[in-house]
């Protein structure tokens, strides 16, 4: 008897055992949905049909089913496996017995319900959405109209207007940085943009950047950058002194 060819007809799967294992290992079949007890039953009934004990097949089957059970247990109770592994053997046995007892109880309760359903199969009653009118809400006690008026007056007053002054962005003039950069270029021919704007606010750095572009546009400097996000190097050209004073009116405005 070849265990892997054992034909299964489960709720979650139908086909040979081999295919089930492959699908589980490929995670294409949710092992949590597979009733392992059904697989064991299928194997036992196949053994019974053959009428003799095939020890090789039993051994192989036990190994495979044990592996499946372990995978399933780990999948179902990832956190609990850890908790249970910390238990003493006696405590673990106690916990297992408690769970088995719970399950046994629920199996009996299910059997009771099935029996009950069988016994109640002759009960016919009207089914449908409840056409009940909504319950009448308890009425409020008599109210004083003056109190209602006072409450409404409170709501009707115009709220104080809010000042948005603190939200305005204040830009320093571009000319301030034009002058600053020109002064630096008078002292030395080149400088790093980053080191010049170090310690400035985001807005000031942005205005300084505009000033640098302005100088480049006027031909007073040339710019070098080795790669994206690399330091920007500013080199003064000869025209830098001649252009001094131009564009000093340049002022950035908030959008």
């Amino acid at each position, binding site marked *: 008897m070849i265990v892997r060819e054992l034909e299964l007809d489960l709720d979650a799967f139908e086909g040979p055992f081999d295919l089930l294992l492959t699908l589980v290992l490929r995670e294409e079949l949710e092992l949590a949905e597979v009733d392992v007890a059904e697989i064991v039953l299928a194997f036992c009934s196949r053994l019974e049909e053959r009428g003799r004990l095939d020890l090789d097949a039993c051994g192989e089957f036990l190994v495979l089913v044990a592996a499946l059970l372990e995978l399933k247990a780990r999948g179902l109770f990832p956190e609990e496996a850890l908790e249970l592994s910390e238990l003493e053997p006696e405590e673990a046995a106690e916990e297992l017995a*408690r769970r088995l007892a719970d399950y046994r109880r629920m199996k009996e309760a299910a059997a009771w319900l099935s029996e009950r*359903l069988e016994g109640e199969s002759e009960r016919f009653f009207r089914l449908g959405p409840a056409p009940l009118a909504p319950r009448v809400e308890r009425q409020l006690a008599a109210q004083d109209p003056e109190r209602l008026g006072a409450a409404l007056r409170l709501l009707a007053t115009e709220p104080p207007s809010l000042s948005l002054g603190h939200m305005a962005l204040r830009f320093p003039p571009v000319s301030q940085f034009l002058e600053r950069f020109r002064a630096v270029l008078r002292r030395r021919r080149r400088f790093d943009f980053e080191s010049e704007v170090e310690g400035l606010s985001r807005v000031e750095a942005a205005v300084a950047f505009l000033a640098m572009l302005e100088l480049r546009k006027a031909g007073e400097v040339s710019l070098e950058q080795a790669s994206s996000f690399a330091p920007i190097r500013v080199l003064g050209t000869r025209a830098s002194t001649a252009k001094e004073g131009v564009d000093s009116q340049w002022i950035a405005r908030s959008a």
Partner: protein
Amino acid sequence: MDRPLRLISANPVDRLARVVEALLVVASQPLSVEDLAVAANDDAERIETALRLLSERYGEGRSGIVLEQVAGGWAFRASREAAEACARLFERPVERGLSGAAMETLAIVAYFGPCTRPDIARIRGIAADSVVAGLVERGLIAEAGRDAEAAGAIRYRTTPLFERVFGLESLAALPRLDDLGGEADVIRERLEAVAEKRPA
């Protein structure tokens, strides 16, 4: 019939009984004494008297309609002798083809509810997602909030329809949990016996 129906009577309880009877005919779900008292604009004690009168009138074997106390209220159903005829006309889709897995899940929700799908999986040892979805679709269980401790998992409880389908007056009519064969001691002894046989 043991005695004739006194459908027209000046007796005030009879008059109230007729109103209660009408309310129960119109309703598609069991009505509690309080529901009936509000609708009939009468007091609960008198409603109970009227219900007793109606129960007598609509007892099994006396009428094609039977008044029963079910799912926490009162409702009419067809008499059992008419069941065969009813079955030719109507289906019972709610309980048709309920699997063993569905029965176990129902039992768990009925006894331990409100409970979450992981709670059910823990007891049955198999994921409960599709079974729970099927039971919700049949209207036998319904969502009952979320479990703050279990990462907000949805909790489920049985519905009044469950009690009605199974002919239960309330969940208290289920057998006591202690009376169901838990046999924890027997299971523990068997586990210990197996453990002792295992080579160290």
